[in-house]
């Protein structure tokens, strides 16, 4: 093993391949997108190289500002709700006997294999007036008449949380499985009720994992463009929907690129902010 930092080209060789892949499949396309975002659109569906700020200027309107803030709010809410459900769920999961854990994980992985379209239609059926769960509530006498719950904000939130849930469990699982549960017992002998121990020991001890998982779920939800159209009303359409619309249906690549770049920058800024805040609290 070489313990010192690599010096010669030969010593750098092992990272050359992944570096090359990263450049070819990530840096170059992203660079192209940034370049395109400054290109000038030509009526009729094409664009030509130029350096104009019109694409970004168009973006600075109340309409896009609202869409952007709604997108961020929705993604943030999805992330928080998904982790708030997944964390206690995973906490219980890792304490089950091993075979039961494996069954749950296989089930969650199979949920991941469902396409976004199937999830969207399944939820819209589940929340519909004719075949939805409100019929069950009517049957047991909790509701007067069946209602349609989709499309709507609640339906969209439910769909996105459902989609993000398996990922959050899988990201939380290793950290919770490694967690030393004698810490919880120690907290109990020191006067904490089980609920108190959960919030004063488990959650703070796994803060970094939780923050990381929230960020992952946030970025994941931010990129969703099908579910808002299937389960939401037009006012629930996110920036990703508009980007898809501009890129595919309006054929306005420069504007779509500008929105995409802006979305990436805003989410990077938010993630950075979350990390900085997290570190500051952690050092207290």
């Amino acid at each position: 093993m070489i313990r010192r930092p690599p010096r010669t080209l030969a010593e750098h060789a092992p990272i050359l391949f992944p570096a090359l892949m990263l450049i070819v499949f990530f840096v170059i396309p992203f660079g192209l997108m940034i370049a395109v975002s400054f290109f000038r659109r030509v009526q009729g569906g094409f664009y030509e190289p130029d350096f104009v700020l019109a694409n970004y200027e168009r973006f600075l309107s109340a309409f896009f500002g609202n869409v952007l803030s709604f997108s961020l709010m929705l993604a943030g809410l999805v992330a928080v709700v998904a982790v708030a459900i997944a964390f206690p769920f995973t906490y219980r999961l890792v304490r089950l006997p091993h075979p039961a854990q494996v069954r749950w994980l296989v089930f969650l992985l199979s949920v991941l294999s469902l396409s976004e379209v199937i999830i969207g239609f399944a939820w819209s059926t589940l929340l519909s007036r004719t075949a939805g769960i409100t019929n069950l509530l009517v049957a047991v006498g909790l509701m007067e008449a069946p209602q349609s719950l989709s499309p709507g904000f609640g339906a969209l939130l439910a769909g996105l949380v459902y989609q993000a849930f398996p990922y959050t469990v899988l990201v939380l699982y290793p950290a919770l499985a490694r967690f030393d549960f004698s810490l919880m017992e120690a907290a109990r002998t020191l006067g904490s009720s089980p609920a108190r121990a959960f919030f004063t020991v488990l959650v703070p001890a796994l803060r970094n994992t939780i923050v990381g998982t929230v960020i992952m779920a946030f970025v994941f939800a931010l990129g969703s463009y099908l579910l808002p159209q299937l389960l939401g009303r037009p006012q629930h359409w996110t920036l990703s929907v508009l980007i898809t619309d501009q890129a595919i249906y309006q054929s306005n690549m420069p504007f779509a690129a500008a929105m995409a770049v802006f979305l990436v920058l805003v989410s990077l800024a938010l993630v950075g902010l979350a990390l900085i805040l997290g570190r500051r609290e952690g050092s207290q």
Partner: protein
Amino acid sequence: MSALVLDGLAKRYGSVVAVHGATLRIPHGQFVCLLGPSGCGKTTLLRMIAGLEEPSGGRLFIDDRNITEMPAHKRDFGMVFQSLALFPHLTAGENVAYPLRIRGVSAADQRKRAAELLDMVQLPGMADRPVSKLSGGQRQRVAIARALALSPKLFLLDEPLSALDAKLREAMQIELKQLQQRLGITTIVVTHDQREAMTMADLVVVMSQGRIHQAASPVEVYRRPADAFVADFIGMTNLLEGEAAGNGTLSVPGGTLVLPEMTGNSRVLLSIRPEDVVVHGNAEGGPNRLAGRLSFVRDLGASVELRIDVAGREIVAVAHPKDRPSVAPGSPVTVELPPQACVLLPLATGHAERAA
């Protein structure tokens, strides 16, 4: 008045019995060691006392109050875990102050009390250290300080010193005992190390296979073991099977012993500590002497270990170097088993019949 009473406390996992009904009275201020090989149920018993494990049967009282059903966080017991279970996200001082924080003590008082506690365990000025920056011995002390932060009624420790190296462990045993004496707190330590138990305990509770074999002072456990398991587990011993004749004589392989206070006639087990066996470097007969052959000598400096073959059985004797018989291995010798050092034990488990 009895501080802690275990009344038939039992734990079963399905068909496996971890602890058969354990009955024990622990007076105030005692230092108790639950001693036994791994898997003997000592940790399960401690966890039941702490409230971390629900007993399958029996009752637990503290100061005549039944606390069998009381949840762990209401018991006011301090516990040190084998893994120490220090909270990794908190500093040493915050760990110690955690129980105070849970009780709603003000931040200033928390800091003050944490500093006092860290002083008590000889870690002054370490309050702001993260747990990850502490050595094994320092973590040990933080865990002890944290468990004692609320001046608990009972101080429980589960193999607390097992992670330390031998030298530090010995020093910590003495320190722990001194701390316990200073605070006068009733303390229960789980250990598999009989030296640790002998060093610290007022009361040694020897356990095996979920049962308490004997609960007595270290000297009593050593000198008057209740059964063969205790005799063999605590220190080294010679066990000889014999037939009591009813007239105060016991025939063992190689001869007959006269044990005046022995009663009854049955097959029994005789236990005698190696340091009580007297080796004579001649073949002279005499009362309670068995003829044998010196088979091996191990010179340990401070003592000499002699192994003597008596009628095909090996008897181990430990002598002071100045009492060493001047004979070479292979020579005939006699071993004397003084009656007052002989303990007669039943062949099966049960209570001891005393020879003297």
